[in-house]
């Protein structure tokens, strides 16, 4: 990736106020559906907030309110010291938004898309084009610059959308599920890009359904569910509350489950849980735990079918914080009947933490 741009001007950052985003008691309903019920949130300048939550939690609604696309019913929100309702017009030139669904014109080329956005920020044609080319180079899209974006892959579209959010070099970025629907490789690429953007001193709010994504990119995580923030803290604080890696052992048919649990108990501070042929252990530390587990099981003479060490997923977070698994709100599922997209996403979520 070409050299990072350092020339970000942060007029807003010089203000003594250190809060980039300040949200108090924010509520928003769509008819009967209460999308937000009293959200409080603080994001410090120069930090990344990861807004973690399942489908229908209200993440997009919050992002849309903070980016002036939607008016809240009650409560208030200040972004870079500007009120999202009263100072909406001024705020728009200070923020960049990459929405949940890449907002690019399919029939325009990458270059035309970015040039158009630049001109809508008030740039001259030449200035907008130069900036567009700079961004295309930065996001590895130069070769595709003159192709209509309908020929782009999902990852390329996301990068273009992100580039569009950066046209005016905003000090504050909103990224709504930036990696949802991408393959693992594109996902890693995008993470790197986002890390670079943040390293330049930007503030960012990103929403995600993946704990590992929030863990990697965010300084602070706010867990949302049913329209409110149910927990927040640094990734480490949160992980302390939900425990570390999960070791899952599937015992051979007819194996002694209890014996296996006893054999694995020393790996954890908590007693293992049993579930069918599965023994689950919250291991104390990742390193060496697989070797240790295999050794203990074979010493006890227990046959193993499958064994995996995985990071806690969003589901684990929810079970730990609320005692129940994350559920997709039913209204949400009908609200957008993009069946395949949704099904794909739920599948994604399952696999998200699975790293052997």
């Amino acid at each position, binding site marked *: 990736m070409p050299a990072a741009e350092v020339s970000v001007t942060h007029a807003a950052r010089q203000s003594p106020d250190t809060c980039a985003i300040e949200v108090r008691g924010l509520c928003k309903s769509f008819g009967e559906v209460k999308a937000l019920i009293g959200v409080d949130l603080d994001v410090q300048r120069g930090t990344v907030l990861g807004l973690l939550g399942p489908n229908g939690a209200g993440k997009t609604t919050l992002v849309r309110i903070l980016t002036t696309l939607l008016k809240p019913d009650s409560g208030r929100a200040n972004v870079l010291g500007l009120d999202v309702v009263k100072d909406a017009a001024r705020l728009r030139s200070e923020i960049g938004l990459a929405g949940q669904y890449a907002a690019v014109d399919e029939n325009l080329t990458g270059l035309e898309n970015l040039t158009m956005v630049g001109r809508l*920020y008030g740039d001259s044609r030449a200035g907008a084009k130069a900036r567009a080319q700079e961004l295309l180079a930065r996001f590895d899209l130069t070769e595709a610059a003159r192709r209509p974006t309908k020929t782009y892959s999902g990852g390329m579209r996301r990068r273009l959308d992100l580039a569009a959010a950066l046209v005016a070099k905003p000090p504050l970025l909103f990224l709504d599920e930036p990696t949802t629907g991408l393959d693992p490789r594109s996902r890693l690429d995008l993470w790197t890009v986002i890390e670079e953007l943040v390293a330049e001193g930007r503030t960012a709010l990103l929403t995600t359904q993946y704990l590992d994504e929030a863990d990697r990119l965010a300084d602070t995580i706010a867990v949302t569910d049913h329209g409110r923030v149910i927990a927040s803290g640094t990734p480490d604080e949160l992980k302390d509350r939900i425990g570390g890696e999960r070791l899952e052992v599937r015992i051979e048919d007819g194996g002694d489950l209890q014996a296996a649990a006893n054999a694995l108990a020393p790996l954890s501070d908590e007693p293992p849980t049993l579930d069918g042929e599965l023994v689950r252990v919250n291991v104390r530390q990742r390193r060496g735990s697989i070797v240790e587990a295999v050794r203990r099981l074979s010493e006890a003479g227990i046959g193993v079918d499958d064994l995996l060490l995985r990071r806690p997923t969003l589901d684990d977070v929810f079970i730990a914080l609320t005692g129940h698994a994350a559920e997709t709100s039913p209204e949400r599922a009908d609200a957008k009947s993009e069946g395949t997209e949704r099904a794909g996403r739920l599948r994604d979520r399952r696999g998200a933490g699975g790293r052997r």
Partner: protein
Amino acid sequence: MRRAISDTLVIAERNLIRLPRAPELLIAFTVQPIMFVLLFRYVFGGAISTPGFSYVDFLIPGIIVQNIAFGGFVTAIGLNEDVHRGLIDRFRSLPMARSAVLAGRTLSDIATNCLSIAILLCTGLIIGFKFSASVPEIIGGIGLLLLFGYAFSWFFAFVGLLVSTPESANSVGFILIFPLTFISSAFVPVQSMPSVLRAFAKVNPFTITVDAMRHLWVGAPAGGYVWQAVLWAGGIMVIFALLAVARYQRATGG
């Protein structure tokens, strides 16, 4: 104000750039009207009697008016796609003039309508259409056509914001407008219709506009038609522009 104009031009330019890349739209603007002119002229023309005019002179003003009324369907499809694919969110998150999305959209229709008029006029002239008009009358006719087309762009903008898919935007527009254009003087003299249809055809704005065009281009007697046509176009434009703007604000949660 200056900003509103430049933003509108940027959006209009964008709409025009993408047009040639959607071949089915381009065909709707070029091949399809030519086909209709030829079919009417050579298939129906012989069977329709138009006292005082050759059928081709009678047909061309009528068929151009019909075509221009549909010119705005690109707006319906385009706006609908923009809303549902999130592009409107991108626009609304920018510090651009709010009015530019709709204004730019309808403005680009004027350009495509000019193209339609040129294509149809050339086809007409090739198959024997003759103006019997002064240059100001010819130009006045083109002006009336563009105004009428612009008014219908707002109708289509409203339809595009109202329905949930681009396909239904297209068919709703078609179902509402197509019969109106046929129950008018566009293709046959209204005198030949059964009395109920004739009564409707006489007050139909399409008849009034087509008759005004015939007055301007081929010297048909027409009394107050031109002014009535202008008033109709203005009225349609104002009503649907208001509806479209209100709908736009609702559709975008503003």
